């Protein structure tokens, strides 16, 4: 008995939209649309470009590109720069030997 009632209610619910009239928006919609249009400027080509550039996927690709360039520069030894890291400590000592200190100046042998 209860299930019969439930079935009846379900059928009523499913048929409740029969004969439905369209809902209508509040009056003066055009005025409100024009107000929104005046607040939002038309999208120029530049705004579309910047809108595309602000996407997270674009930022991520840009970051990857910068990292790639950095890696290329790092492993190719820089932009035509032939300097090599200082590996020869002798050069350091050579510089140190030639440096004169106040002690040396004061104690120079005639």
């Amino acid at each position, binding site marked *: 008995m*209860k299930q019969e*009632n*439930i079935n009846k*209610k*379900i059928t*009523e*619910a*499913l*048929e*409740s*939209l*029969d*004969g*439905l*009239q*369209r*809902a*209508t*928006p*509040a009056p003066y*919609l*055009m005025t*409100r*649309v024009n107000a*929104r*249009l005046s607040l*939002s400027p*038309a*999208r120029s080509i530049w705004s579309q470009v910047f809108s595309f550039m602000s996407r997270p996927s674009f930022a991520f690709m840009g970051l990857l590109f910068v990292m790639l360039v950095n890696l290329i520069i790092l492993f190719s030894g820089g932009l035509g720069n032939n300097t090599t890291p200082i590996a020869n400590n002798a050069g350091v000592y050579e510089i140190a030997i030639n440096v004169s200190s106040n002690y040396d100046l004061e104690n120079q042998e005639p």
Partner: protein
Amino acid sequence: MNPEIITKLQNGDQSVFREIVDGCQDMVYNTALGIIQDETDAEDITQEVFVQVYQSIGSFRNDSRFSTWIYRITVRKSLDVLRVKNKRQQRGIFSKFFGGRDDDDPVHFNHPGVVLDKKESSAVLFKAIEKLPDKQKVAFVLHKLEGLSYQEIADVMSVSLMAVESLQVRAKNNLKRILQSYYESHLQ
């Protein structure tokens, strides 16, 4: 919709925009209302749709009907708003304590176009429609509230006719299941 009006707007004739708004406002508002079930939000969506129509009229190609294009914009914007609302509700502080949305929320939406003696039943039905997956919801609303044929719905949703038929069947079965559950707990 007179094709000349669309061509004039594409050519920059602003005065015909009013004719487009006047001619399409009911279908846009009614569709948005059916999906979002909130008059304030539906009003916002309606305005946004026409703003986009105005700004994007240049991209409208005559490969589909103008009404199809407007329905697509309306459905997309309505679903976007719905997703934001659902996320906000899920993040609500009470949801954290009570584990999500309360399925016993009272029916809260009355479509203004429903016949008077069917208001109560329709409110329960709209509550059930709210629980449908998005695609089923859209297909059901476009058919029942806007009276679109399955082919027209297929054009709007960019799916096949068979897909729309399947969506309608699944929507109806899901609605029956939801209504069964509702009336089991609410009928004495």
